C-alpha cells in the first residue's frame, strides 16, 4: 500500500510537474495578495514591533495569578489615546511574563498604572526597550536594504558556483518566494516583526539556498541517471534536511520563554515548510522545464 502510494506520487511528480507548479504559483500569488492587502489597508506589509518602528516594549515577569483581560482593560482605561498591545508568555498554563508595547508612552507610566491595578512589580522584575521613532524607521529602512543586499549577494555566489545565469535566478526566486509567503503568514498571525525577526529572515534565506544549491548541483553537474532520478535523489536528502531542521526549530519555539527567540523560531519553522514546496515543486519544475527546452534546442541545432 505504502509502496503503491509512493509509486503514484512519484509518477505524478515525474509526469505532471508542470501542473504541480500551478499549486506553488497560486500559493505565491496568494501570499503576494495578502501582503498587498496589508499594504493598502494598513500602509505596511507586516506590523512592526518597537525595535523597527519606535516606542516602548515592557516585559514583566509575573509570579501572581492575574487575568490578562482585566489588565488590558485597565491599561486601555488609563491610556485612552494610546495604542497599547499586550501579549503573554505562558509556561504550563500559567502566565509567566507579560509583554506590553506602546508607541507613545514611557515605561514608567505603564508600570505606575500596573501597580495601581494591584500588580506587584519589583525593580529587578522587568525589562524594557525603548526606541525613538526616527531610529525605528531607520532600522526598518536598513532591514529592507539588508534583505536586498542578501538577495544580490546570494545571487552572485550562486552564479559563481554554477556559471549559469538562469538556474541561479531560479535559486534566488525560490528564496524570494519563501520570504514572501513566510511574511504573509506571520502577518496573518499578527506577529510584530522585530530586529530578531529580521535576523531570522536572513537566516531563512541562507537555509533556503542550501536546499536549492543541493538540487541544482545534483541536477546540473552530475551525469549519472536521468534528470528525474537525480531530482528524486536530492529530494530525499533535501526533505531530510528541511524536516530535521523544522522539528528542531519547532521544539525550540514551544520551549523558549524569550519573546525574541520565539519569533526567530516561528519564522524559521514556517520558512522551512514553504521551502519544501518552493524548492521541490517550483524550483524543480522550472529547472526541469528549462533543461528540457535547452535540450530540445540542442537537438534541433544538431539536426
Amino acid at each position, binding site marked *: 500500500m505504502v509502496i503503491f502510494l509512493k509509486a503514484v506520487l512519484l509518477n505524478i511528480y515525474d509526469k505532471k510537474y508542470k501542473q504541480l507548479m500551478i499549486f506553488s504559483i497560486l500559493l505565491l500569488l496568494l501570499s503576494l495578495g495578502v501582503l498587498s492587502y496589508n499594504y493598502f489597508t494598513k500602509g505596511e506589509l507586516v506590523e512592526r514591533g518597537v*525595535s523597527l518602528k519606535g516606542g516602548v516594549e515592557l*516585559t514583566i*515577569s509575573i509570579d501572581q495569578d492575574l487575568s490578562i483581560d482585566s489588565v488590558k482593560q485597565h491599561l486601555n482605561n488609563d491610556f485612552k489615546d494610546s495604542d497599547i498591545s499586550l501579549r503573554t508568555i505562558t509556561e504550563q498554563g500559567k502566565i509567566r*511574563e507579560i509583554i506590553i508595547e506602546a508607541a507613545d508612552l514611557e*515605561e514608567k507610566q505603564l508600570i505606575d498604572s500596573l501597580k495601581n491595578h494591584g500588580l506587584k512589580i519589583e525593580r*529587578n*522584575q*522587568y*525589562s*524594557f*526597550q*525603548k*526606541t*525613538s521613532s526616527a*531610529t525605528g524607521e531607520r*532600522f526598518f529602512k*536598513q532591514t529592507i*536594504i*539588508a534583505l*536586498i*543586499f*542578501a538577495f544580490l549577494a*546570494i545571487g552572485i*555566489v*550562486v552564479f559563481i558556483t554554477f556559471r549559469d545565469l538562469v538556474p541561479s535566478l531560479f535559486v534566488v526566486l525560490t528564496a524570494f518566494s519563501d520570504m514572501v509567503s513566510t511574511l504573509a503568514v506571520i502577518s496573518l498571525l499578527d506577529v510584530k516583526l522585530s*530586529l*530578531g525577526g*529580521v*535576523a*531570522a529572515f*536572513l*537566516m531563512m534565506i*541562507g*537555509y533556503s*539556498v*542550501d536546499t536549492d*544549491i*543541493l538540487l541544482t*548541483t545534483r541536477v546540473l553537474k552530475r551525469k549519472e541517471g536521468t534528470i528525474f532520478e537525480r531530482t528524486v*535523489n536530492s529530494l*530525499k*536528502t533535501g526533505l*531530510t*534536511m528541511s*524536516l*530535521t*531542521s523544522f*522539528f*528542531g*526549530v519547532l*521544539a*525550540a519555539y514551544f*520551549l*523558549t*520563554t*524569550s519573546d*525574541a*527567540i520565539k519569533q*526567530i523560531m516561528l519564522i*524559521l519553522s514556517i520558512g522551512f515548510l514553504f521551502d519544501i514546496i518552493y524548492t521541490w515543486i517550483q524550483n524543480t519544475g522550472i529547472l526541469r522545464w528549462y533543461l528540457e527546452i535547452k535540450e530540445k534546442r540542442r537537438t534541433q541545432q544538431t539536426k
Partner: protein
Amino acid sequence: MRNIKEIFTNIRVIILIIFLVLMVFAIYPNPFNKGVVIKSVIPNSAASLAGIENSKVTAPMSLEKILMINNIPVTSIEDYYKLTSNALVNQSIFIKTNKKNYQLLVKPKIKEIVLNETEQKIVEEFILVNETINNTVVQSNKSINKTIDVPKIVKEIIGVEEVGLRVDNAPLTNLRKGLDLQGGTRVLLKPVQEINDSSYSDIVDNIKERLNVYGLADITVKEVSTSTLLGEKAEKLIMLEIAGATEEEVKDLIGKQGKFEANIGNQTVFIGGRNDITSVCTTATCSGIDPDRPCSRGEEGFVCGFRFAITLSPSAAQRQADITDKLDLVTSGSQKYLSQELTLYLDDTEVDSLKISSDLKGKAVTDIAVSGSGTGNSQKDAIDQTLKNMKKLQTVMKTGSFPVKLEIAKIDNISPTLGKEFINNSLFIGLIAALVVVLTLVIFYRNIKIAIPIMINTLSETLIILGIASIIGWNLDLASIAGIIASIGTGVDDLIVITDEMLKKQTEVFINWKERIKRAFFIVLSAFFATAVAMIPLWSFGGGMLKGFAVTTLLGITAGVLITRPAFAHIMQKIIEE
C-alpha cells in the same frame, strides 16, 4: 577495532581533537569555582588606597580572587559583605587574594551639618581683604588671615565608608555574559549632527572618562558605524552597555552634552576640558559646601552654595587678564568690582555669576574658585542636590564637553532576573532541540550509529564557537545565542548532505570515497558562501544590535567547513564501511 584506530589516526580527526582541547583551555571551565572576584575598584576608596587595582586582564577566570578576609575564608558574596560591613572606622581589614595581601584602612563617612548659629573663624585663604561679601569668587595669589562670621559646620562621622570594591561571584568559565544574560542598561547614542572621525573618538573617550569618574563597573563602550550599503547614508553611533546600572543613572551621565563655559560679557574666558583647566579639586579640603554661602531658607525650600578650586592653564589665565584689563571699575558699597561679571554656563544654562574684584583687573591668575548652588525641600535634600550639582560640574570641567549633543536613539534595560532565566532556558532548549534533531535523523536513516558522529559534530561546533568567543572577548547576548542555534542548524544540514553522498549505493556508478567527499563538499562550500554573504549586512545593521548573530553564525559555519565537517566525513566513512 581497526576502524576506530583509523578514525583517530586520521589527520582531520587529529586537527579536530587538537582544536577541541584548545577550546576547552580557552573556556577554562571550572564548575566548582567558588568565592568572590574583584570586578572593579572605586577611585579614592579604602581599597584603592591600599593598592588594589582595576584588573588589566579581561578574561573572567583571571580576575583577582579574594581568598580570605581577616583570615576567614570567603566563599560567597554574602561572606564578603558580612566580613566587610561590620568594620569600624580606622580599623584594618586584611584581604588576601590569589595575587597579593592587602591591608585596608576603613575610612569614615563624613557628613557636614550646617547649624543655624554662626561662629567667628580665622581663615587663611588666597583671598583679598576686600572680598568679604557673599558671591566672592576670585582669589588672588596673596595669602591673608582674616576673621569672618561663618555658619557653624559640624563634621559628623555618620558611619563607615564602604571599602570600595565591586565584587561578583567567581565565574565558572571564561565566557562573557552579555547584557541580555546578566541584566543592565544598553544605550545607543547618536550625535545630532554629522561629525568627523576624530570628534567621534573624542566622544567615546569622553564617555569612558565620565563613567570612570562615577566609578561604574562593567562598562563597554563600542563604536558602531553603519556602512554605506546600497546608498544608505553612513551613520556613526555609540553603543554603551553598563551592567547593573539603571536608566536614570545612564541618562544623567550622558544625556547632557556637558558644555561648560565661563564668560565675561559675551567673551569666553575658559571652557571645560584639559586645555583650559589643568586641575579640578575634588577633595574635602578645597571643595564642598561654601562656608560663605551656607544653606538658607529661600522662597521654595532651601538653597545651599558649593564651591571648589580649579587651576587654569596659563593661556586661559592670560585670556582672562586680557579681557578684565579692558573693563571699568564700579563701586558697590565699600567694595570695588569690575564692571562685568564672570558667568558660568552649563549646557547653555547659567549656573552662577560672580563679581570680579578690582584687584584682578588685568592679572593672569591661575587659581580660581568656582561656585554654584542647589535647592531642596529640606536642608538635607538641598545639601544632597548641591553636592550632586557640584559633582556634575566637576566632571564636565575635567572631561570637557562632547563635540556635539548626543541623542538617545534606543535604550534597553534588562532585568537581572529575566537575564538569568534566559540562560537556563537557552541551555534547556539547546539540549532539547539537539535531541529532537538526532532522534529525527535516527528515524530517517533507521540507523542508531549515525547519532554518534552527529552528536560529536554538533557538540564540537558549539564548543568551538564558545571557545573562540572567549578568546576574542565576545559578550554573549541574545543575538549571539540565536546565531549559535542557527549555525548548528546549517551544520546538521551539511551533515545530511555528506551522509547521503556517502550512502549512495555503490552499484549506481562506481565512485570512490574521495570523489564522494569532494562532491559533498562542493555543496557544503557553496552553501557556506551563500550563508556567509547573507550575514554581511547584519554586521553594521540595526545599530550593531545583531552583530552577535553574524559573529557566532560566521564562527560556527567557518569552524564547520574547515574543522568539524571534514572530520565528520571521515568518521562517517568508517562507520558506513563497517
